[in-house]
């Protein structure tokens, strides 16, 4: 197609030569001398839901000791719609303690990941997950990643129906190779290799990661426009009519590369019916497979493919491949992206408690024994676990008769107070993982954001803004995992202790923000925000959010 096969990026060649993502992973695992994988296998292991990382804080010290870097693995689960049974949570809790750092990290894409798993523990971890009917297939890599879906069932009686699309889309985007089962679960290779034939991914997979989100208005907790494909459930009279479909979202950029940019998904149209919806998602994937840039990974996301083709040509190609035309998009409204913390009840009378988890890190610390509390809830068997794209967990589907028992556990461990007492900005904030494990990190994020907010809170209070849910997001590099580009206040790490300050996003996720200042350190950031927030508190119109105020005052030009 449009690819110049002679100019393939290194990763493309690795994929092609990988024999269905197998590479030499088995040999790498057997190498007793290193905790790392062979170089090519480091690319392939992502398709199996893992990243090879190392403790970047320890590099220098370990080198002096003639020890290699402290390599370990992050394993991310494929968890369409972010749902887990209590039995699975108990298992996850135990696996985290036995094989990983102990911290359960809820990601910005509605799943969980474990860090610090040594090479020798990777197979046991995957095996343990497998016995819980959990897997990490395609959780990372150049494939359709975890499919996310509006988390909170209270918003609509048809949540369940929409939620089922997450699994269906996840299934249609699963690679067919049995490599995962052979490498990690010791299954025998299939005798008939034909069963592995993969009409979707073929032998090249996608040019880059691919993300699908389903939003259920009026909540845009999934940040639907930040995804390659965004489905917006259209609900009329409590019935699911179909979806508005948007494509080409993606936030990652590269410092100093003007060809890269964050982009929100473009609305394409409306589709009714499950069959057509799934077909459209599938064909967007095939277009990206066939037209995406395979020579420069920095320019290979669907957003660049669409902009290169032109939106009309892209839509025409899609309709041609689908064999049907898209209808005009239906009206919808988003009113918020934040989670609704605390108790709520759905249409069937089941109860939900949305727990505030700072930066998605579930652990016991000096402030709160959150991990133990959630384990107790899970052990009671009275609640399911649903993760949100705001890195929180909803203790879910509690029968009315069980509510008291669950409430008592949450009360006893201080989870309710912890959730209620968290400040408005803190509860809405997001940070990516960054140091010490993310190889891309330039500046701190999740380790630093809580401290930063503690310093910001007095400033907010000074200006009477402590109840204002300004969306503030921090990401340690320009790749955008923390979705800083769609925040009212966004930080993008540039160097250790330094951030670009972005302003002007809206609260609902319709609009990208813009870089306001380059390369600020903490003192400069706090000074800037102090002065901006002071002006905002004095000059805002009634009900005007900070992001909108900044745009109206033309502090940034969008």
């Amino acid at each position, binding site marked *: 197609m449009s690819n110049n096969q002679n100019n393939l990026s290194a990763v493309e060649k690795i994929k092609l030569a990988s024999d269905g993502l197998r590479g030499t992973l088995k040999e790498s695992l057997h190498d007793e*001398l290193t*905790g790392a994988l062979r170089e090519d296998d480091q690319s392939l292991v992502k398709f199996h839901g893992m990243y090879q990382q190392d403790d970047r804080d320890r590099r220098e010290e*370990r080198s002096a*000791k003639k*020890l290699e870097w402290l390599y370990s693995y992050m394993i991310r689960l494929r968890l369409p719609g972010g749902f887990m049974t209590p039995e699975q949570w108990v298992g996850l809790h135990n696996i985290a303690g036995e094989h990983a750092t102990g911290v359960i990290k809820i990601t910005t894409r509605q799943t969980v990941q474990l860090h610090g798993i*040594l090479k020798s523990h990777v197979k046991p971890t995957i095996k343990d997950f497998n016995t819980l009917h959990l897997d990490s297939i395609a959780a990372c890599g150049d494939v359709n990643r975890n499919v996310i879906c509006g988390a909170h069932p209270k918003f609509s009686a048809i949540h369940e129906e929409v939620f089922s699309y997450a699994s269906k889309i996840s299934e249609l985007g699963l690679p067919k190779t049995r490599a995962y089962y052979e490498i990690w679960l010791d299954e025998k290779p299939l005798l008939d290799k034909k069963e592995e034939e993969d009409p979707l991914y073929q032998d090249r997979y996608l040019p880059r990661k691919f993300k699908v989100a389903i939003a259920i208005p009026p909540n845009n907790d999934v940040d639907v426009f930040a995804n390659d494909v965004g489905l917006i459930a259209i609900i009329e009279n409590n019935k699911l009519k179909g979806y508005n479909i948007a494509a080409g979202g993606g936030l990652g950029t590269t410092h100093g590369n003007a060809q890269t940019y964050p982009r929100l998904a473009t609305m394409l149209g409306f589709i009714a019916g499950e069959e057509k919806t799934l077909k459209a998602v599938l064909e967007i994937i095939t277009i990206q497979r066939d037209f995406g840039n395979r020579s420069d990974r920095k320019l290979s996301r669907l957003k660049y493919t669409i902009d290169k083709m032109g939106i009309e040509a892209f839509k025409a190609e899609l309709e041609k491949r689908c064999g049907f035309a898209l209808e005009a998009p239906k009206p919808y409204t988003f009113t918020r992206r934040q989670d609704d913390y605390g108790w709520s009840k759905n249409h069937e009378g089941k109860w939900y408690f949305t727990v505030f988890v700072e930066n998605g890190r579930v652990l016991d610390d000096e402030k709160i024994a959150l991990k133990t509390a959630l384990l107790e809830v899970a052990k009671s068997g009275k609640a399911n676990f649903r993760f949100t794209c705001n890195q929180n967990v909803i203790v879910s589907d509690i029968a009315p008769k069980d509510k008291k028992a669950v409430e008592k556990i949450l009360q006893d461990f201080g989870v309710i107070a912890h959730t209620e007492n968290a400040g408005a900005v803190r509860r809405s904030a997001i940070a990516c993982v960054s140091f010490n494990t993310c190889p891309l990190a330039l500046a701190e994020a999740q380790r630093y954001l809580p401290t930063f907010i503690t310093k910001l809170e007095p400033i907010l209070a000074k200006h009477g803004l402590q109840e204002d849910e300004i969306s503030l997001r921090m990401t340690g590099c320009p790749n955008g995992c923390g979705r800083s580009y769609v925040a009212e206040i966004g930080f993008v790490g540039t160097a250790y202790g330094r951030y670009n300050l972005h302003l002007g996003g809206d609260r609902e996720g319709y609009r990208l923000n813009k870089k306001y200042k380059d390369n600020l350190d903490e003192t400069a950031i706090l000074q800037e925000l102090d002065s901006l927030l002071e002006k905002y508190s004095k000059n805002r119109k009634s009900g005007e959010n900070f992001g909108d105020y900044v745009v109206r005052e033309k502090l940034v030009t969008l």
Partner: protein
Amino acid sequence: MLAEHKLKILQDLVRSSTKEELVWMNGFLAGVLMNCHDQSTLASQTSQASAAAPATAPAPVAATPDKPAVSKITITYGTESGNSKKLASDLAAKAKKSGINAKVVSLDQYRLNDLSKEEYFFTIISTQGEGEPPATAKKFFDHIHQNGFKLNQLKFGVLALGDTSYPLFCKAGEDVDQQLQKLGGQRIVSLQKCDTDYQGDAEGWFSQVLTTLSSNGSSSSVAPIAGAVVTKKPAGKKIYAGSIITNVNLNDRDSNKQTHHIEIVADELEYQPGDSIGIVPENAPAIVDSIIAVTGIDKTKTVSFRNESHTVYDLLKKKLNIAYLPERVVKQYASIVKQDIPETKISLLDLLKIYPVSNAAQFQEVIGILEPITPRLYSISSSLQAHSGEVHVTVARDNFKVNGEVKQGLCSNFLAELPVDKQLEFYVHKNSQFRLPAEDKDVIMIGPGTGVAPFRSFLAERDATGATGRNWLFFGDQHFTSDFLYQTEIQNWVQTGVLTKVNTAFSRDQKSKIYVQHKMLENSAAFYEWLQNGAYVYICGAKEPMSVDVEYTILQIIERFGSKTSAQAIEYLNSLKEEGRFLKDVY
């Protein structure tokens, strides 16, 4: 100095003597001098010494006789590091050249019943720890300390290896020399005590042995010296003044262990892979200060200790063993302070606190009975070919329990805390038993923990010299992430092909403990193939249980893959040992 007529005789004598005769005279005079305490006793000493030597000693003025007077001798050795063995075979080679049939046998292989039938019997024996013989000589040592038998036809000579840094220098050799005499044996060559630089003294003793044997060797002309043992003062060993350039704990933060990699530079260094260095640790200043405080002695006072003068402070800090006094010292202490003290190992400070000295003068008396700090030996982990001008050691920081209390090993802690640029004295302790084979031979190295030290030296040497033989390393420790000593260097050697194979065993990374021998078993077929191909096997590290388990495992491998009975496997392993292809440096 000599009167003219004496000088003339001497010159004539020297001129007319062969080289061997001169060597003999040299030894003879040294022996005489050892026993002359002052001028007045010289005459009697000389006459006694003359009696000790064959009266006809310098007689064969012409060249070496065509036919030796003695045709058959037995050379036995008791060895720990292999030095005695090496010397025994050197002596045998020289004897054979002189037409003497020499049988060389290790003392642990020696049939004790044969002793009474021996005529010419030479023993080369080292001394371990507190004056003990090496483990391989224990049976023989105990045997000759029994009564009830006589060795009337035995003519013997003893070469003792030792280290002057230890309080009981060459004690095992002295004991053997005296016991053989007590049992009725006739000493035909006087005892030679050698320090760690033993080569020169040993050569001198060899010459004496050969001269004696070839001149006459008949018992009538050989008489033992009554009461006194003639010994020569050993040539001093070379002490290097080094300077620390690196001192890093190789284990990571969360390890149960601390293993220091220490790099030392020194001028004119000479050593070979397989050698060790000896280091005399210094005592902790806090303890020295406490001793000075409780005794009230002036720390700047200069006192003499074993013919050297030092200030009290320097003596206590650098020279004297104050950590755990042996019972014999405690006994002497008790008689100085005139108190009943139970026989036990105790530190000087505790002793002073419980059984105080009456005053500083009495403490000075105590100093006189103290023993020098014994040096500790550490396998060298560097190669001069690769690390020019440097010597590296790999030191496990030692913690042990005494009566339930955790104590720290004196030397390992002293070394662990040495800062960069600190000066450090050391000497090289040769280990001729533990040498690399010819450059084209394969080598299997089994060295868990600090046992990896000499193998780092081996690999660096083979890397630097481009040796073509294959190299296979077995390493093990507790945890992969924190205890993989020299991990990045080992990785590099694998990458550059210096290491053909490496297998690691980390015992505590999984529920069931995995040790190096398990990895050897997993690789049995290849292991046996290497053995069949002439590989040399080296084991370094803990004697118990590691080296025992490893040796047993090798027997299993030989049995299984060589289709042998267990007796045949033992035979196979024994032949490896005889060929010098199965070598251990264990502790």
